């Protein structure tokens, strides 16, 4: 009897935290509750692209349209970059980087996954593409491309998205993604921001100060 | 139909006018009303303070007084909610269950059971309606601002049957007044501040009277109004619906 108690005691003592936690949960002996059905008829929009664009603008994103990568490149060079430069008082030369081969010539190409992410510390503008967007909240799905930190560390972010890839809501988004296999990915909706000081909105907390989206026809 | 009038303890002692108006209004609408004499209290003051286990005596007395009636009607949403949620008895489980289903707050009794469509009442004043939380969120006397659902209001519907009344819109239409039972003394500072803010909303919007279906909230707000020597008064909704 005494040795049994001792065994029990030492078992308790040497039981891993993992086992302790699992045991405690099991001991709570909750009756299984079934999973609910999926949300029926979530909101859809007559013109999801319009809705996407309205919501994006409301959170401080610039929404632009372009026919082709070349058109994006032209617009960036002739209009958008000078605008950003003036508005934010950026000094030349800008460090522009991109993960898109189409931006060759305008931006430095990131092709090496082993690049030290700290080396991107001084990037002024990053040009990347998003897989799809969501109309209800203007979020864009940006999977890891080359360097994980790129869309966060740059001062200004430009994302290209196919306007046929604007979904209505988040349920459609996860349906499209399935289980996925991205090591990392993020929904990005607008420039980095904070309202921690008296609820006044300030753009450019730690991540990009601005976000521009090119809706590709 | 035989209705028992349940008059909460503090209404009996401090606001008999609200109970009288309830009784007269129901009689005017052709209801036979009795007032069981032995009644005291629903037990909520103890229960909300964590002493529900001491409410056994209260419960037995309540059951003794109110069993056997078709309906039990009371001019207090909070007490009704307490009875509906917590009345129980090991000695008389059926009777307590029965009572829990037959107890109604006055405005829900008028709208849901009597289905009152018109009232012969006149109250030529600007009136602000205080939505007492237990009536509104507990008994669902009116739609709650937090929910995404269609609006309705049982007290509002009845007040709109009163001639010459003008209902004022509030900035925060269903914020708590801060009475909260023993909260009003245990958390004195916050309770008074909540009450002041609620009263200020009514005053800002020009209310001459603040009404509601719960006298306890009105008692709290009256204390603040009178402290500030305000001309605005509180009045139980039964008194408006019963006015000529």
């Amino acid at each position, binding site marked *: 009897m005494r040795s049994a108690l001792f065994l029990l005691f030492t078992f308790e003592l040497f039981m891993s*935290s*993992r086992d302790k*936690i699992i045991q405690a*949960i099991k001991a709570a002996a*909750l009756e299984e509750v079934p999973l*609910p059905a999926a*949300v029926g008829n979530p909101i859809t929009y007559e013109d999801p692209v319009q809705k996407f664009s309205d919501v994006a603008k409301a959170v401080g994103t610039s929404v632009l349209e372009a026919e082709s990568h070349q058109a994006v490149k032209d617009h960036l060079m002739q209009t958008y970059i000078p605008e950003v430069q003036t508005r934010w008082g950026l000094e030349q030369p800008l460090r522009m980087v991109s993960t898109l081969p189409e931006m060759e010539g305008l931006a430095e190409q990131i092709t090496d996954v082993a690049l030290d*992410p700290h080396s991107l*510390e001084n990037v002024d503008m990053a040009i990347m593409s998003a897989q799809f967007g969501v109309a209800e909240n203007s979020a864009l799905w940006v999977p890891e491309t080359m360097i994980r*930190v790129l869309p*966060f*560390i740059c001062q200004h972010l430009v994302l290209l998205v196919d306007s046929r890839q604007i979904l209505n809501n988040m349920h459609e988004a996860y*349906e499209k993604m399935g289980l*996925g296999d*991205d090591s990392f990915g*993020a929904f990005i*909706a607008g420039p*980095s*921001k904070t*309202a*921690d*000081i*008296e609820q*006044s909105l*300030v753009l*450019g*907390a*730690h*991540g990009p100060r601005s976000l521009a989206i090119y809706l590709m026809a | 139909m035989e209705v028992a009038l349940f008059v909460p303890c503090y209404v*009996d*002692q401090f606001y*008999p006018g609200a109970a009288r108006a309830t009784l007269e209004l129901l009689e005017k609408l052709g209801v036979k009303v009795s007032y069981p004499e032995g009644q*005291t209290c629903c037990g909520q003051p*103890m229960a*909300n303070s*964590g*002493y*529900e286990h*001491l409410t*056994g005596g*209260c419960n037995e*007395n309540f059951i003794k007084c109110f069993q056997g009636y078709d309906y039990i009607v009371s001019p207090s949403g909070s007490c009704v909610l307490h009875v509906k949620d917590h009345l129980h008895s090991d000695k008389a489980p059926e009777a307590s269950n029965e009572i829990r289903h037959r107890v109604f707050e006055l405005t829900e009794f008028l709208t849901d059971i009597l289905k009152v469509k018109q009232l012969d009442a006149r109250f030529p004043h600007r009136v602000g309606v205080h939505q007492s*939380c*237990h009536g509104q*969120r*507990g008994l669902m006397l009116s739609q709650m*601002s*937090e929910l*995404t659902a269609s609006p309705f209001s049982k007290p509002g519907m009845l007040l709109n049957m009163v001639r010459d009344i003008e209902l004022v819109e509030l900035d925060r239409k269903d914020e*708590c007044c801060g009475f*909260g039972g023993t909260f009003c*003394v245990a*958390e004195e*500072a*916050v*309770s008074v501040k*909540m009450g002041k803010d609620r009263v200020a909303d009514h005053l800002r919007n020009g209310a001459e009277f603040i009404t509601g279906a719960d006298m306890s909230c009105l008692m*709290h707000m*009256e*204390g603040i109004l009178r402290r500030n020597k305000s001309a605005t008064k509180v009045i139980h909704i039964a008194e408006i619906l019963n006015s000529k």
Partner: protein
Amino acid sequence: MHTDKKHAALADIFNKDEARVNWHDQTLWFVRAKRDRLTHDLPEWEVLRDTASQIKNHALSRLQHYLQEFEEQALANGVQVHWAADAEEHNRIVCELLKKKGIDRMVKSKSMLTEECHLNDYLAENGIEVIDSDLGERIVQLAKEMPSHIVLPCIHKKKEEIGDIFHEHLGTEAGVSDPQVLTETARQHLRDVFITRRAALTGVNFAVAETGEMVVCTNEGNADMGAHLAEIHIASMGIEKLIPKRAHLGVFLRLLTRSATGQPITTYSSHFRRPRKGQEMHVILVDNGRSRQLARPDFKNSLKCIRCGACMNTCPVYRRSGGHSYHHAISGPIGSILAPNLDMQKFADLPFASTLCGSCSNVCPVKIDIHNQLYKWRQELVKAGYTDKKKTIAMKLMASTLASPSKFKFAGKMGRITLKYAPFTVNNRFNPWYKGREMPEPPKQSFREWYKGRGDFGSS
């Protein structure tokens, strides 16, 4: 911040400055109003709440299964999994991970769990410096305070006070209080931190059992800046954060930020599945009382909480007493039902810091019946003896009076006589009612007396 004062006393202090109470109330009401605008725009809002609630109920009912599934997936993804039975063990694990790599400085993004565990203090005692990178948290950290709100940590501070803190610690000019300027200063200061720290700790908003991934939501991008630059990323999560399937994220991400701040979604919803090349990723699964709460039938569903803070923004008591009056890392209504599980004696006051108005339960995106649990905690605490003995005596007296019609009649008469003939015995400074309110005017007759005069008794 350590205090022996209870909620009522702390709230009383907060209410000494009425203009500030008004400002605090209105700032948070503004957030509640933003939440209303967004939620009322979505016809399926209530269905979403129902669905989320049921998913969480399901997940909690099979928690050991989902924890094991998550562990398996995370390990397969190359994430190292640790289990911590309590706060102390959690802190020790973090400390050991850092020591093993010879790291003595870490950057941390918002994690209420680490506040609950008092991680920063523990690491400081062990020679490790932690810098909080969420702007609000950095501000309270510099001020040596606790967050007063789980989503808006420094909502209790005015910009002028923040200006003073920045002047003292970050070298801004004295008197500068423009949020734009202060935020820019913090950006520069924290960029330097992100670039130089080899370790980053983040919280977890949702962990998906099916894929082993962890989702972290921020507006500032601070979790990402920390994690993607550090060579070791530690994610700390309570075991209740698990959801079964990836598709469920669709439900929760729609609810979280609309409820929290009235935004359609946070700027960043980052899905961490595998460490990047050359990086270590760790997850610590923390119990710290959660399995105990799970075994309490009346309180288990408090574990559905997704930490949106909507119950705080709507709570009329929270808005007028400030987060610090709850003397716990998680304040407001949800804190008041979670804290007693951690320490009944210390937090016995919190379930009473409410009028039970029920607004919290109505805004809760996962439909926790917060106000009912406050009521039930009161019963538990009284039964366990954690209330004032004088109150117990008074309540017993009250119960016996109210149980007896004759005693009640007599007491009522006495009460009214006292009011009418000797108002000074009641209307004095010892009566907390009278401090800010007049007593009701005693009527000549009670209703009962009037009714008797009508001659109707005996009709039933």
